[in-house]
């Protein structure tokens, strides 16, 4: 008899229990008093929900204390949750129950929250405050937080995915360091030089491909492809995309310069490019700012970063979080003042000092404090983040994002296991996405 099974009653009860609670609370919420659009004169207490760990908590608190100094009548209480789905569930239940936070952190779920009318459009506030988002964050990043032409969140932390490379391995192989001028051919040539086999066993990989969307989708965009057209219709099985995926998959299966999923699994559960890079088993990887702290602490690791190479055109994905104001906030105008402050150079500064993340504000990304950070134990080409900002692509974010991600992974994984051809996988994704997108109203 298997004893390892679902906590049956607990899950079922949580599921339906929260469902009932939701229904009741939604009804109650309707009776609340209307929010005020004017900033308060007296004391106001706001709550702000974010996810993350200890560093995030510390940095957000530092930034909020700065905001409170700027606006002495406002107090902001921070609510920190674990990340991922748990956060999204917790916040959506709270908002549906009328007990949502005033300010909340959002990422890929912005369209889902916006389409269900859970967060306020910020366009009027942006106009009143005369903010030029394109100037502050670059043209692309604000679009990640827009839905149907309206802005629902202000970018808070964001940075391009860049190329991390092991300088010593490049020197040993006699290869030139990567630049933004590299083409796919240059990438392959370098990866071939950097892959080292001993007695049939790979000792060092040149590059690593994984089934996570910021990896493979970047190659599609670099090849002139995309996922959805301007009318949100899937265009996944285009010749550009098929060609890109064939090239991507060949890295592991034809040229053998990147580990197959099977090779990767042999390193252990949860081991990916970041870990291999830190262990000195991988020469190049695509990753985000978060990996800096890890790479910085590995003794003897001689590394640097560079913007990604280009295909037919340069393209890179970005990681991003923005700040939004919930529909249930009683003091949206005050919440806006806090959000506006947090997006300013002053409000973003603690993000750099604690090496938490890349700040979204480009002025801060270009400041000396970011380019020559005081925590760095070595010289790092931090300019790569601002340099990449101009070619970040907006991923096909829609309210159905989670479902789309599932369709992708269902079909990209068999492709990467060499069980399905890229053409076949993309054909299936196209069909499934057609269904997913047509189900939306």
């Amino acid at each position: 008899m298997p004893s390892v099974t679902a906590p049956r009653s607990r899950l079922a009860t949580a599921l339906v229990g929260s469902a009932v609670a939701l229904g009741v609370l939604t009804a109650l919420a309707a009776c609340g008093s209307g929010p005020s659009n004017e900033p308060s004169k007296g004391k106001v207490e706001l709550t702000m929900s974010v996810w993350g760990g200890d560093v995030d908590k510390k940095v957000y608190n530092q930034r909020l204390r700065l905001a409170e100094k700027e606006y002495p009548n406002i107090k902001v209480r921070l609510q920190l949750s674990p990340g991922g789905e748990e956060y999204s569930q917790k916040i959506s239940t709270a908002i549906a129950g009328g007990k949502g936070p005033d300010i909340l952190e959002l990422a890929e779920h912005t369209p889902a929250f916006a389409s269900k009318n859970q967060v306020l459009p910020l366009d009027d506030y942006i106009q009143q405050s005369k903010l030029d988002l394109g100037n502050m964050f670059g043209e692309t990043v604000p679009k990640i937080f827009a839905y149907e032409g309206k802005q629902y969140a202000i970018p808070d932390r964001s940075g391009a995915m860049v190329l991390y490379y092991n300088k010593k391995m490049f020197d040993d192989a006699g290869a030139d360091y990567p630049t933004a001028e590299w083409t796919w051919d240059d990438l392959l040539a370098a990866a071939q030089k950097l892959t080292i086999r001993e007695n049939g066993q790979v000792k060092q990989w040149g590059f690593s491909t994984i089934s996570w969307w910021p990896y493979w989708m970047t190659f599609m965009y670099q090849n002139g492809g995309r996922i959805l057209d301007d009318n949100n219709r899937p265009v996944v099985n285009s010749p550009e995309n098929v060609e890109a995926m064939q090239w991507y998959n060949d890295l592991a299966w034809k040229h053998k310069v990147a580990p197959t999923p099977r090779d990767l699994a042999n390193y252990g559960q949860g081991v990916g490019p970041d870990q291999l890079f830190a262990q000195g088993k991988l020469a190049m990887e695509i990753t985000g700012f978060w990996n800096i702290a890890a790479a910085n602490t590995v003794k003897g690791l001689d590394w640097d970063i560079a913007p990604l190479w280009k295909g037919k055109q340069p393209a890179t994905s970005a990681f991003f979080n923005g700040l939004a104001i919930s529909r249930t906030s009683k003091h949206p105008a005050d919440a806006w003042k806090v959000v506006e402050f947090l997006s300013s150079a002053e409000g973003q500064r603690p993000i750099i000092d604690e090496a938490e993340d890349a700040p979204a504000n480009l002025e801060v990304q270009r400041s000396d404090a970011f380019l020559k950070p005081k925590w760095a134990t070595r010289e790092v080409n931090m300019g790569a983040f601002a340099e990449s900002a101009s070619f970040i692509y907006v991923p096909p974010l829609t309210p159905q994002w989670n479902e789309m991600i599932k369709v992708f992974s269902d079909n990209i994984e068999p492709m990467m296991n060499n069980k399905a051809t890229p053409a076949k996988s993309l054909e299936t994704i196209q069909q499934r996405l057609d269904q997913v997108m047509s189900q939306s109203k």
Partner: protein
Amino acid sequence: MVSPWLVGFVVFLAGPMIASLYFSFTDYALLTPPVWTGLDNYIRMFTADPVFWKVLGNTTYYTVISVGVSTIVSIALAALLNKPLAGMRIYRTIVYLPALVPLVASAMLFAWVLAPDAGLINRALGVLGITGPDWLREEAWVIPALILLSLWGVGTGVVLLLASMRGVPKELLEAAVIDGANPRQRFFQIVLPMLSPVILFNVVMGLIGSFQVFGQVYILTGGGPNNASQMLVPYLFEEGFKNYRMGYASGLSWVLFAVIMICTAIAFRTSSRWVFYETEVR
């Protein structure tokens, strides 16, 4: 006296159950109020959702094999552990121990055990000259891998069987010896019928538990590759909380409820043919 229990029952069980039955007939996006759509969710489930049939098939396959194999293995283990050998208490502890390891820990452990080339199982197979599959990343092997993990926890069933085995009256076995029954006959004709009520209990609990398998799938495979290991509970969790389709998820949970009811009913109905209750004879 009964009222605290009654309150608990209404608030935590009956209320939510009725609510979920209602939601299963609505389009309910969790963040917006539910909209009545009649049988739409069920129609979509049975006619338009290709994943549903795959998930139902996977769950049934997993349940039937895992409960079947677990039953046989646990009876065999109980019989072995019933032998009068020195140090038997240690063996018994060893068999029961895995059942005490938290699910998440054993699932993480199995990710290692099942690793394609570095894993214990495939290394053992390699010694025999067999190239083992990439258990968790091949569609054909991912459910067998989950079944292997389920066998890891047979200890609880073994303990119950062992207790009942030791309760088999000595005089019955002695009488059988006098009648000339060999050990095999004694086991199949006497011990096994005496164990049958416990076996029924194990099978029914196993069915209920296996149909609701969640943690292993969630941790080890996420339902992949290509939904080959997706099961009903992780699927309804995903639909409800990730895809904002609480109405559809509620419908799925009622179908799961119906499936479990039917299987349990079958187990009980057929039990009159194979379960022997001593008290009914006396």
